[in-house]
């Protein structure tokens, strides 16, 4: 190899598709910067939740009253598995010449993600049935905003996946589509990290206290 290979975070295409790797440099970096800005957004929501879940219950339901821990656990498992399947999709993107594997893994990821969203909506519904609506207290306002913001991100990721599946169909595996898939992968894995924090600091903490 002539030049020192540059490794950006995420799966590098360098060893199989050098051209795409070369142009990916600023684009992936830019996307990382975006992810970091997004992470700040979540961090602020976490900090707000941290205070409101304790100080803002207003005599209303407390975390332990309304959280369905097993359900959250299953959601976590779904999302984690979807990260692994997206990993497999990335591998297919990098190493497999055909799109079949890629599409298979993406569709699987989509289903897992959709399952996650479905369960989350069910959880919300149950809470609302119990009267634990966001209008009830500061704690619930901040809970719904934090968790729903994550949910909206996942939903956006699902839409994005659909668009990319369409693009795979229309354009095939062009550099542009590849780079978009790589960005979606980063987005997806990052949402996982955010969820791990939600699971731990919202659900587990809420119930453990």
């Amino acid at each position, binding site marked *: 190899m002539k030049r020192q290979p540059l490794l950006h975070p995420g799966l590098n295409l360098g060893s199989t598709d050098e051209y795409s790797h070369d142009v990916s440099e600023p684009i992936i970096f830019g996307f990382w910067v975006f992810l970091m800005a997004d992470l700040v957004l979540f961090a602020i929501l976490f900090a707000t939740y941290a205070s409101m879940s304790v100080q803002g219950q*207003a*005599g209303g339901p407390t975390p332990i009253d309304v959280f369905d821990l097993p359900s959250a656990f299953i959601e976590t498992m779904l999302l984690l598995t979807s990260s692994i399947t997206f990993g497999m999709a990335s591998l297919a993107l990098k190493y497999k010449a055909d799109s079949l594997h890629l599409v298979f893994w993406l569709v699987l990821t989509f289903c897992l993600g959709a399952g996650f969203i479905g369960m989350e909506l069910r959880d919300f519904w149950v809470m609302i049935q119990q*009267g634990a609506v966001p209008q009830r207290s500061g704690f619930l306002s901040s809970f719904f905003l934090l968790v729903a913001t994550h949910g909206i991100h996942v939903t956006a990721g699902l839409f994005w996946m659909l668009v990319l599946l369409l693009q795979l169909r229309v354009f095939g595996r062009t550099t542009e589509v590849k780079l978009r898939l790589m960005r979606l992968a980063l987005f997806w894995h990052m949402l996982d990290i955010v969820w791990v924090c939600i699971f731990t600091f919202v659900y587990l903490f809420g119930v453990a206290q």
Partner: protein
Amino acid sequence: MQNVVSMRRNQELPKILVRSAGVLLLLTSSVVAASDGFINPAGPVAEALRDHLIFIVVVMAIVIAPLFIALPWVLWRYRLGTKSGSYQPNWEFSWPLEVLIWGLPAVIVGVLSWNLWHQSYELDPYKPLAATEAPLEVQAIALDWKWVFIYPEQDVASVNELMIVAGRPVRFRLTSGTVMQSFMIPRLGGQIYTMAGMVTQLNLLASEPGQFRGLNTQYNGMGFANQKFMTHAVSQADFDTWAVNMSESKPPLNQTAWAQLAKPSVLASPQSFGSVAEGLFTGVIADFTGGYHHIKADGTDL
């Protein structure tokens, strides 16, 4: 000749500055003496604040004054076409200077920080003032656009008028029945926010009898500019007489009177109340924090 002209031009600007600053300072000090800001203190807190301010300015002058002196000199000495200063377009670094320009401000900030540390604890508004007498307790409630003062020990209340004892510390406990506001009596000391459902504290003292303006400093709508009150610092004897007169002659601050006060309005003149409904102050706070039923899991209680 030409030199003189360009010198004049080059120095015009800083010179004017220095002069106007001087004039300003003079004017300031004379006007300030007559003003009712903390700069003309009427109590130990405001006095400490003023001294702290002066201390900062003096210490900062050590690093700021050199700029005012050096800048005109540099502009003059290194102007285009001069023969005076050497021209070294690539001169870009010097360790001694570097150490100086990082070091000196760092030392100054160190000194200021030390001072800040001590003063902040010393002048913490929650901290009771050192005095032999027990402080006078006053509960202040911010409303739109008026201040309600309750004197729990005397069981009287006044609106838009504050009566305190000269020479005796006052301990305020403050809350708000509406939006966030900020309570301040400039000549006595600093301000503190008042917020619904919460209690903040402030300790002040007026050294001498007198009248001091107080106000809300945090914008809260149409009546903001009119939300002011007069503080009367009087002797203990006068204060006691006043309190007794109040309880004998003024109407009670009951729920009806309170409901009237709580409506947004600007009062034409201060009001007084001869007795205060039990637990009014805590009630105002509880309005925003308590009184909720604990929700049941099945939601029947919502």
